[in-house]
Structure formats: C-alpha cells, structure tokens
C-alpha cells in the first residue's frame, strides 16, 4: 500500500520527462497524476487515521506520518494544478521551452516522491537519505530559471543544506550507536525498534545526537540562525515550487527532528532537554524572522521569512509541549502549509502580472486582479494569525501551552513578536493590495485555472478556523499521545 504511494509519483516523473515536448500531454498527465496521487494519499491517510499505524517492513506510517502525508499530497497536487497556468504563462512569455517544462513536471513529481519517502521510512537512515534527496531534486527546481540570482540561491541552498544534513547524519549515527549495546546486531536503526527500547538508550549519546540532528535537520527546516539559505531559495524558485518548499519541505525536515524529539521524550532524559532546545531555536527563529519581515522589500522573500517565523512557531509549540503545545504545533504544520501555499500562489500571480518582486512597485491589486487580491489579503490575514482563519487556532493553542506550562516570559515574547510580525506583514500586503495601480496596468487575472487551487486553500483555512474534522482531531490526539502530551 505504502509502496504504491511511492511508486506513483516516481512513475509519473518518468512519464513526464519521457513525454518531453508534448506540453499539453505532460500537463494532462500531471493534473491526472496529481489527482490520483491525492486520492491514493488521502486513502492512506484516512486508513492510518482510522485504523492506526501501518507497518510494512521498512515502510511505516503512523498518524504523524499520516499528517505529513496529508500535507504532502494536498499541497503537492494543488501545486501541480497551479503549475499548469503558471508554466503556460512562462512558456508564452518565452522564459522557458517545452522540454524544460517537461523536466519541470518530472522533477516536481520526483520532489514529491522524495518527500513521501521521508515520511514513510521507518529507518532513520533512510529518512536521512530521503531528506538529502529532497535537496538534490529540488535544487533543480530552485535553479529552474537559470538566472544569475536563482543560480546563486541554488548554490547556497545546496551547500548549506548539505552541510546541515551531514551533521544530521552524524547525529543519526550517535543515536544508532546508543541503540547498539541494547539491540546488538539486530539494531536496524528503525524508529519503531528504537522507540521500543527508548528508555534504555544512553542519554549522553542521545543528547549529542539530538543536538546534531536539530542543527542538521533544523538547517533544512529553516530554523534560525541556520535559515540563511531559505529566503534566497524560496524566493528564487517558481511560485508553485516555493509553495512546496515552504509549505511541505520545511515540515518534512521538522518531522525528522520531531521523530527524534519523541524518542528523547520517551528516554530517560524526558522531554525537557529536547523541548528546551526547540523552544530556544523557535524563539530565535521567530525573532529574527520578525526583524526581516519589518525591513523586507521583496514580497517573495517576505513570504520566505514568514515561513521561518512559522517554523519557529511550530518549534515553540513543541518546545512548550503539553497537550496544547503539541496540538498547536501539529495543527500549525498543516495550517501553515495550506496558508503559505495560498500566499505563494497569489505571489506567483502578482509576479507574472507586475513582473517585479518589489513590494513598492506593486500597488492597487484590488483593481487589477480583484480575485487574487482578495485571496492574497485573506491569506495574509490568515498567515498573521487573524481569526477566523485556521492559523489563529494553532497559534493560540501554542500560546495557551506557554501560559499553561508556566513559561510566561517566552509566552509573552512570543505574543509580542507575533504582534510585530502582524503589523509589519500587513503593512506590506495592505499597501500592495490597495491604492492606485501603476499607470498602464491592465485589469484582469492571469488565469482562471490558477485561482482554483487558491480558492480551495482559502476555503480550507477558513473552515478550519472554527472547525476541525473529528477524524483529524482524533488523529492529532493520537499523535499527542505519541509525544506523551496526554498526561
């Protein structure tokens, strides 16, 4: 079953690349493939949510992987759909050729494949391989435009993430080392087998291992101060890819960190050590991202920094821990993905319409492209934590956790920084959306099709603002139990 979810995107990738110049066909395959991927993925997710974990040898899915899978297939397929009009526009404007488009779709599927691999691997070594693979595959997508700036971004992305990931490997080795004396030769680095003996693992190994893993995967997850590659890569890649990078890939890296966090929580160390570090990096990320959001001049970078901010929030959520903290953190992973994807799609429309990434040159969106403007505004409000949108729910859960756990000072600085981010972020977006558009800017959306995934996302984040489906809520509670947050 899980293999199917892996094979499908891989096969689709191959088909797309083989089809080459037949762009229409490639698009059709992509959209159909996205649909089938979504159906298959959702089936798996519901299966896991409904009946508990799925153990197929080296593949393993529990509710946590299920949540990740949900994010991957949801954003993945929507990004596929959004790519069609986006790439058509690029083709029309002569930015790319049909062959490149085929490669684009192929790599996009491959990218999704590697991310699925991250979340369904039981073997922590395998997880590492998959995370590194995401870097390698997505490097091509980041550097897709072959412009000086995108090459620069790609280079930084490759080097910084690779070095980070090497540290993660070192950390993985230490965790493995800790399990050797207990499991002996039977030690297979499987997360499930490690969990079974978690309380016997050596704390010294676990500590140094976790530090390395946190820095390592944290680099990939965009935690400050290892985040430096992120604004470049996320702003230089094509918008659908940015959506995937920000919305999904960061979560996958975070997922990897959290698997270790769970392990530590169940060890003799207890949750204190790892959650302390998560809280530290979370607050740092939030603070640094806030500073950049204030001074930002480029709206795609703005969104990228906002991703750093939100990874910080997720990290803070798990750092606070407890029922609300973990609930909030998990929910925030989902909510942030949905919202950030919406925003990057919107930014894609704006970029193609206005041809600039400068905030100061984009004015009066509400006149030129009213639907994009409305959706962008909605997304901006959502991402900054305004009710009635979903991120508000998860952010307030995290805050509740902070206060509930007695972490009053971090909780207050958390809320202060959120206010600052709100002010700065809205300041930028409101100026883009309203006001008098530049001279000679025609009225009209880039494409109708591009709005469809955006509307879908907008509907989801609005509904999730008040209402969390029971099946999801139950699954989240199971994950909280996994994290030991249901004391």
């Amino acid at each position, binding site marked *: 079953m899980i293999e199917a979810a892996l094979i499908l995107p891989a096969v689709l990738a191959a088909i797309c690349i083989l089809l080459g110049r037949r762009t229409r066909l490639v698009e059709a395959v992509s959209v159909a493939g996205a649909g089938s991927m979504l159906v298959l993925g959702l089936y798996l997710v519901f299966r896991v949510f409904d009946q508990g974990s799925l153990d197929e040898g080296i593949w393993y899915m529990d509710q946590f992987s299920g949540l990740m899978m949900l994010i991957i297939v949801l954003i993945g397929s929507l990004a596929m759909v959004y790519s069609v009009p986006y790439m058509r526009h690029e083709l029309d404007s002569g930015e790319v050729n049909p062959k490149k488009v085929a490669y684009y779709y192929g790599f996009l599927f491959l990218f999704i494949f590697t991310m699925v691999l991250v979340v369904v691997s039981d073997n922590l*070594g395998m997880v590492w391989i998959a995370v590194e693979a995401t870097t390698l595959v997505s490097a091509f997508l980041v550097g897709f435009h072959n412009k000086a700036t995108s090459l620069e971004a790609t*280079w930084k992305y490759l080097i910084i993430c690779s070095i980070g990931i*090497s540290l993660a490997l070192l950390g993985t080795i230490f965790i493995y080392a800790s399990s050797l004396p207990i499991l002996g030769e039977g030690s297979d680095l499987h997360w499930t087998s490690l969990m079974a003996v978690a309380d016997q693992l050596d704390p010294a190994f676990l500590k140094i291992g976790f530090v390395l893993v946190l820095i390592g995967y944290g680099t990939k997850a965009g935690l400050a101060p290892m985040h430096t590659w992120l604004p470049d890569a996320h702003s230089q890649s094509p918008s659908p890819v940015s959506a995937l990078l920000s919305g999904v890939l960061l979560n996958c890296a975070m997922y990897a960190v959290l698997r270790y966090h769970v392990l530590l929580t169940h060890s003799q160390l207890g949750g204190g050590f790892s959650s302390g570090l998560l809280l530290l990096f979370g607050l740092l990320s939030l603070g640094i991202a806030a500073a950049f959001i204030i001074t930002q001049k480029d709206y795609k970078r703005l969104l990228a920094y906002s991703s750093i901010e939100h990874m910080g929030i997720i990290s803070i959520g798990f750092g606070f821990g407890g029922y609300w903290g973990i609930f909030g953190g998990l929910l925030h992973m989902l909510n942030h993905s949905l919202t950030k994807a919406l925003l990057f799609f919107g930014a894609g429309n704006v970029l193609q319409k206005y041809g600039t990434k400068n905030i100061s040159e984009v004015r009066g969106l509400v006149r030129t492209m009213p639907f994009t403007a409305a959706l962008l505004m909605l997304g901006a409000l959502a991402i900054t934590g305004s009710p009635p949108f979903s991120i508000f729910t998860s952010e307030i859960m995290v805050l509740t956790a902070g206060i509930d756990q007695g972490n009053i000072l971090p909780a207050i600085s958390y809320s202060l920084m959120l206010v600052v981010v709100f002010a700065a972020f809205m300041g930028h977006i409101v100026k883009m959306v309203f006001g008098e558009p530049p001279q000679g800017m025609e009225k009209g959306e880039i494409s109708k099709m591009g709005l469809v995934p955006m509307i879908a996302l907008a509907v989801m984040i609005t509904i999730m603002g008040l209402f969390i489906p029971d099946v999801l809520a139950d699954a989240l509670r199971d994950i909280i139990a996994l994290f030991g947050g249901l004391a």
Partner: protein
Amino acid sequence: MVSTLSLDAINTLAAMILLADFMLVASSRMRSLTRIFALQSLAMGGLAAVVAFETGAEHIYVIAVLSVALKAVVIPRFIDYITEKIQVNREVEPLIKIPGSLLICAAITILAYFVTEPIMELGTAITSNCLAISFATVLIGMFLMVSRKKAITQVIGLLVVENGVFLAAISTTYSMPMVVELGVFFDIFVGVVIMGIFAFRINRTFETVDSTVLRRLKD
C-alpha cells in the same frame, strides 16, 4: 580480543586522517587539495578495512571498497575535471590566512577532544578513540568551507565533513546498516555531481566560481 596490531593500524590511520585535515588547511593550490582529499579517503578506506577485518563484518569490506573507489578515485577526478574545464586559477584564495587557519584548526582539534571525551568513555567499540578525530574532521571541513573563497573548495570542504561523519560511523557503530550506507554513498555521489553541474552553470553566468561574488541576494 582486538589485536594490538589492528589497534595500532587504526590509530595510525586515524592520525593520518587528522594530518590530512591539517594539510588541507595548509595547502594553497587547488590540485593539492583534491590530492590530499583522495589520500584522506584512502586512509579512511583502509581504516574501514581494518575494522572489517577485526570485527569480521563482511559488509564493511564493501563499504571500504566503495569508499576508496568513490572518494579516493572518482570524486577527486571529477573535481579535477571540473576545475580544468572551468579554468579556475590554481590558488585556493583563503579568507583567513593559512597560519591563522592552522592555529584555529589546532584549537578545533582540542575542542573536538574536549567535546567527545564523555562519549569516548562510554564507547565500547574498538575504534572509539577515533571519535575525536572524526569530530575534528567534521569541524575542520566546515572551517574550510567558511574560510575559503572558491565554490569548488566548498565542495571539497563538504566532502571532508562527509569523511568525518563516515569516520564517526565506523568508529562508533562499525558503520550503519548496509541499505543506509549505500544510500548515503549514492546521495553523496549525486550531490557532488549536481554541485558540479551548478558550478558549471555559475561559471557560465558569472564567469567565475569565486563564491564571494554570489552576494546579490541579501537583505
């Protein structure tokens, strides 16, 4: 029990790896960088072979062979090829002068011993002494990346870090499970190739691989 010969061999090889780290920092020519890296990888392979011999785990032989083949032969060749192809000048162009770099590396080595001390005491593995050296290698690899200008040197630094990680894997756990180890090798190989490709592209666009010019994206 472990024979003293093997222990001596392991310690010697580990010392060679550390020495190679310092030589890397000290070298001022691109060519010598790749050569020293190849030597280091060779020592690493040898170390793995000794461990394999000592523990009798056959899969470590495979890893030793792969390591030598990939890191001591293929990758250095590939890097040399790129360096020639894009006509990088032969200077390493350090941001921190070589004497200073060496001093810092010495400090790093001490730090590595300091940091790994409690874990080394725990270690039951025959090679656990190598842990400090592996840490030192990781950190020196990173230092190389931080302190050298050229994009290619960064790739080499990254490979040095990988070597350090590999050494850690060997020294604490007698390498990882086979699947993982193979995957890691594959990733490293593909990674270097992709970096090579992008080094080409960057060279074409910027007409240099001096990574300090890659500074357009900032806030």
